[in-house]
């Protein structure tokens, strides 16, 4: 029963990692950009939810309704300006620029909001949980986050498979030059992909703020977990990201069960083992690596 609980809590945690990672997976799949500021964008979204939306008289629980679309817009603008400019240089520049942004954002948040922990206030909901068996407690918030992750991934899959814009996104991801020759404006498509990525990361950031305390430095740690989820699941595979997130979550819960010190270590070790025996990840194609 103890182990069942470990697995259940791991899956719930994995849902959050998948939500956090799907924007990253999309950005890499379509733009071939690794956004090292991804985690910090999530933290910014959480700070916006806590400090700015109350001014609009919106309860913090519903703040995502306004923060998510705003981040989508920001994503489009940031892509068309900063990120596109660095893509035009070379892949290294995107890494340097996004890492630079990450450090700048983190320190700005430290300067403005101090290192104190914050939470997105959701009232009594935070303590409510479903209690199906003696020692198993399933928090409604974690369950909602897992459901949101599955919903976001399903919607993304439907969007990519059945809409015209989605098909364009896939075309640009497969072969940018060929898509361009067929008349696709790849910069606009990149902007749309970035908008979706930023919107999902805003969701992930607010979800994180609901689940636990966050601080300006939370972005880096969560980004590391998100990257681990993407690599474990397989680079460029959306559902692989969900499986990778869950595998990571379960590994961390097993580690934490042995000794709370081992939580992150267990996840890192799973990542390194996957890297050693199956570098393309569980669902990835070999070609994604080269």
């Amino acid at each position, binding site marked *: 029963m103890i182990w069942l609980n470990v697995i259940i809590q791991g899956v719930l945690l994995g849902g959050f990692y998948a939500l956090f990672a799907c924007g990253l997976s999309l950005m*890499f799949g379509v733009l071939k*950009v*690794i956004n*090292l500021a991804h985690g910090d964008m999530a933290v910014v979204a959480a700070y916006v939810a806590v400090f700015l939306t109350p001014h609009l008289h919106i309860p913090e629980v519903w703040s995502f309704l306004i923060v998510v679309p705003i981040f989508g817009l920001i994503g489009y603008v940031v892509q068309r300006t*900063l990120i596109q*400019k*660095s893509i035009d*240089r070379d*892949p*290294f*520049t*995107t*890494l*340097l*620029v996004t*890492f*630079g*942004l990450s*450090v*700048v954002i983190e*320190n*700005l948040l*430290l*300067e403005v909001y101090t290192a104190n922990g914050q939470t997105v206030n959701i009232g009594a909901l935070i303590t409510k949980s479903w209690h199906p068996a003696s020692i198993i407690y399933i928090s409604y918030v974690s369950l909602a986050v897992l459901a949101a992750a599955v919903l976001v991934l399903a919607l993304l899959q439907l969007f990519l498979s059945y809409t015209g814009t989605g098909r364009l996104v896939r075309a640009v991801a497969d072969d940018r030059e060929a898509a361009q020759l067929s008349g696709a404006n790849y910069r606009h498509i990149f902007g749309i992909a970035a908008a979706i990525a930023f919107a999902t990361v805003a969701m992930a950031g607010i979800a994180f703020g609901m689940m636990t305390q966050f601080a300006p430095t939370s972005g*880096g740690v969560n980004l*590391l977990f998100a*990257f*681990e989820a993407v*690599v474990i699941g397989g*680079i460029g595979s959306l559902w692989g990201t969900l499986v990778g997130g869950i595998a990571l979550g379960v590994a961390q819960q097993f580690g934490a069960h042995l000794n709370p*010190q*081992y939580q*992150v*270590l267990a996840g*890192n*070790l799973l*990542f*390194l083992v996957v*890297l*050693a025996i199956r*570098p393309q990840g569980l669902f990835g194609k070999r070609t994604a*690596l*080269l």
Partner: protein
Amino acid sequence: MSTTNNAGLEQNGLIAVRRSTHSPIFTLVGALILVVLLTAAPWIVPAEIATTLMNFFILVIMATMWNLLAGYAGMISIGQQAFVGLGAYATLYFALKGVNPFVTIPLSALACAVIAVPVTYLVFRLRGGYFSIATWVIADTAMLIIGTIAMLGGGTGRLMPGLQNLSPSETAHYSYLATWIVALVVVVGTYYLLRSRLGLVLASIRDNEVAARSAGANVRSARRIVFVVAAAGCGAAGAVLAISQPFIQPTNEFNMQWAAEMLFVSMIGGLGTIEGPIIGSIIFFVLQQTLQQQGVWYLIIFGTFAVAIALWQPRGLWGAFRDRFHTELLPVGHWVREIKAE
């Protein structure tokens, strides 16, 4: 004017190939004066300035190693703090075993090089950005593992033994000299490494990897050597860091900020030049000392500056200067010059 007497294309009198556009004597004399001054510094300048210089040297060591990785071998690591931390902890370990802390510096560098070899077999499976993430995971894992070892102070840290029987001024002088010598060895070593055959292979990979491979360059092994050398250099930086700030803590030694500083300094000074990281470090320290009272603003300003440089002046300040004036203080490349037909 003079007739050319070099080989190949040069026989036609069309081009001339030179290491440098000015006489190396200037650099040599300048370098000698600088070496003498910096060696004597702790006896000349006040103690605070010597401490600042030490921190500056540590940054120069790290940035030079990061620049070797990214600027010459195209590997963007955001996990070099792994080797800074491991170097610091190796020093602590050897000191606990009774070795003189100053003697442990080369041992710690060697230990980091040995650890780096198996690490390359893991992280080289990923490319580009995913390589960067993998190095970060390695750094995080190394920090977490070290944090579980009680003998090394666990998560809370431990004071480095072996320095207490020296007088404070002796400690200050010796640690200054140790840091300065390591910085000198790292910069001069990098210079000769880049002028060697390996430097040529790296330049060919940077210019065109496919062409370099087909010409017989062993890309993977060249990168492996660079990664191991950079690990040793960062390990030495960690060792001198442990001596200059002898309370060793995982969160301090394995701090991500080391990676951020190495990267910003190299980018601003100029990736792919030896002078760049040094100039970047100077700018960083001037800014840090000026904005000391304003918390982390120096990092915010410096980061913004680095992003702007990456976007609009990707060759960095020294790179831009060199391109305009065709001069290198530490020439590792060759200049090809067209000779005007008479």
